[in-house]
């Protein structure tokens, strides 16, 4: 883009062409300032890692790798392990995506491709509204409506139908993995719709028209020509939803039951990393207890990095195949 005033109206060369004279060029200033902002992102991430690493020192030294495999959460003996929390975090996030991906992507396809513009705009506004609701509100709604619904109707029905499998065995409380997964699904749903819809809208018209010209029906054009083209954006929306699900604290704490154990049953109560930190950090009385909670935070941080890294690899792998175009 030529024609920027600052570039064309370059001042006469100064006597000493040093740093400051170079700064007079607007491009340089903009470059430096924005670089600084971008570097902040890296700096914050590194600082978080450093602080978590340093503050979890006692727990890392005492438990080492066994922290990841131990199911103990013993306050009296000061013996801590992360496995029930890792399990709960991954399971609830997985359940959330299981529900919200088909619903969210489906809704995005409708809003971007099929709905009349008026309806699409109104609904998109509502979706953005949903994304802005604080998580504690979702938690309260879950306690007062979702949990009774699960306890009185959904859980007993699941137990009656599939009670012979370990997935739906045990007593029915209403709170538990399934309730947490369901509330997370509701919370990730607007993110997935919003970002997927943008991705679908970015698909060039020609893509759709070409499919229609070849005799495809409207749905065939959408499903076979438009959606694959927007695959990257849709995957991005899913990982954004996943990131929210992994770190969500309040709403999950309110409905998961907060018991540090591993159970195959989705109806059973459990715990997540973010919930246990929220519950116990304020009253972590001994140093090793506190350090173990910070170690858990480090585990969550690493978990997020690993999952996001895997997502990147997945995206790179699929783009290389060129399947999208």
């Amino acid at each position: 883009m030529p024609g920027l005033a600052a570039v064309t109206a370059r001042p006469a060369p100064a006597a000493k062409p040093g740093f400051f004279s170079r700064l007079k060029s607007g491009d340089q200033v903009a470059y430096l300032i924005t670089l600084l902002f971008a570097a902040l992102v890296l700096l914050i991430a590194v600082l978080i890692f450093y602080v978590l690493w340093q503050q979890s020192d006692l727990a890392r030294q005492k438990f080492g790798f066994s922290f990841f495999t131990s199911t103990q959460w013993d306050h009296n003996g000061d013996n801590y392990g992360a496995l029930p929390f890792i399990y709960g975090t991954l399971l609830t996030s997985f359940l959330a995506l299981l529900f919200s991906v088909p619903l969210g992507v489906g809704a995005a396809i409708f809003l971007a491709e099929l709905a009349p513009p008026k309806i699409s705009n109104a609904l998109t506004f509502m979706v953005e509204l949903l994304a802005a609701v604080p998580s504690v509100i979702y938690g309260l709604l879950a306690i007062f409506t979702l949990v009774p619904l699960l306890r009185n109707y959904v859980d007993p029905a699941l137990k009656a139908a599939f009670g012979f499998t370990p997935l739906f065995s045990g007593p029915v409380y209403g709170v538990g993995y399934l309730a947490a997964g369901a509330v997370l699904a509701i919370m990730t749903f607007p993110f997935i719709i919003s970002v997927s819809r943008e991705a679908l809208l970015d698909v060039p018209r020609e893509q759709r028209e070409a499919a229609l010209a070849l005799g495809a029906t409207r749905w065939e054009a959408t499903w076979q020509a438009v959606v694959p083209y927007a695959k990257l954006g849709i995957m991005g929306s899913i990982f954004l939803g996943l990131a929210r699900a992994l770190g969500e604290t309040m709403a999950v704490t309110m409905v998961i039951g907060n018991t540090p154990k591993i159970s195959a049953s989705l109806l059973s109560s459990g715990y997540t990393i973010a919930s246990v930190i929220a519950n116990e950090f304020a009253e972590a009385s001994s140093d090793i207890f506190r350090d173990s909670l910070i170690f858990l935070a480090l585990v969550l941080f690493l978990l997020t990095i690993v999952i996001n890294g895997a997502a990147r690899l997945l995206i790179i792998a699929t783009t290389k195949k060129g399947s999208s175009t």
Partner: protein
Amino acid sequence: MKRPEFLGLALAASLFATAALAAPRIIAAGASFPYPIYSKWFSEFKSEKGVEINYQSIGSGGGISLLTAGNVDFGASDRPLTDAEMGKMKSKPVIFATVLGAIVPIYNLAGVKQDLKFTGDALAGIYLGKITKWNDAALKAANPGVNLPNSDIVVVHRSDGSGTSFVFTDYLSKVSPEWKSKVGSNQSPNWPVEGMAAKGNEGVAGLVKQQPGSIGYVELNYAVQNKMAYGLMKNAAGKFLKADLPSVTAAGATAKTVPASITNAAAPDAYPISSFTYLLIPSKIDDAAKRTAITDFLKWMLVKGQSYNEGLDYAKLPPSIVASEQKLIADIH
């Protein structure tokens, strides 16, 4: 009354210090259970004496750590300090009981209209997972004539570390040797029973309200203010009592000094799951203006402050404790 002179405050950390302040500004933090009465006290004290005390309700553990780190002028805690915590303090704190609270059992049994009676043994049995049905013999024996259902008991407890859990397990440890050896008293106990946990009094109350057949425990003033039904407890003298403020003060009167555990107190009209909550005041306060302000507050709290307690559903300190604490103020230098 002597008004503390304005001194150049060494409040480097405080962003709030304003030049026009006529008195030292005091920062305190700790227990959330007494927060409503403390904020009432601090606002009354400010309007009477002009001294502002800023209290952060962040939990007992947080109050203890901030006091240890020297970030607050005094702390507040629902439980006495452990030896390890005491050892880390730069200046050994003087401990003042301020108000009393109690813990009551709440439950959700649709068919039962009467208030249920619990013995310590039965409550320990339920929380140990040994009593699993509402029509267990131990519960039936304490509640003759009540039609207890043959349904499972769902146990609800706190998920956050809490002074409430500490007092509750302290009581169970006194009435049940098995509880004492298996679990003991702890602000975040290792609950031996399969159940559900929720954050705060409101979380436990919410779960119990929702879950048929459940039992939980909350602070008395929380139950009173939310008009919840709660059970009677059998005290050490063998009497079933429904917790109220006089019965909690009666339990406090059994203590000779503070801090003291007053669960399962021996007095005939003492409610058994009662406890003090405390202020932790450093024994050495270098800033003279702050020292005067804090000791003034303590004197005020022990006399006039106590008159606000019952309006906010906190039990008053018994006169014996007030007298002994008035002498304790002299230990602050």
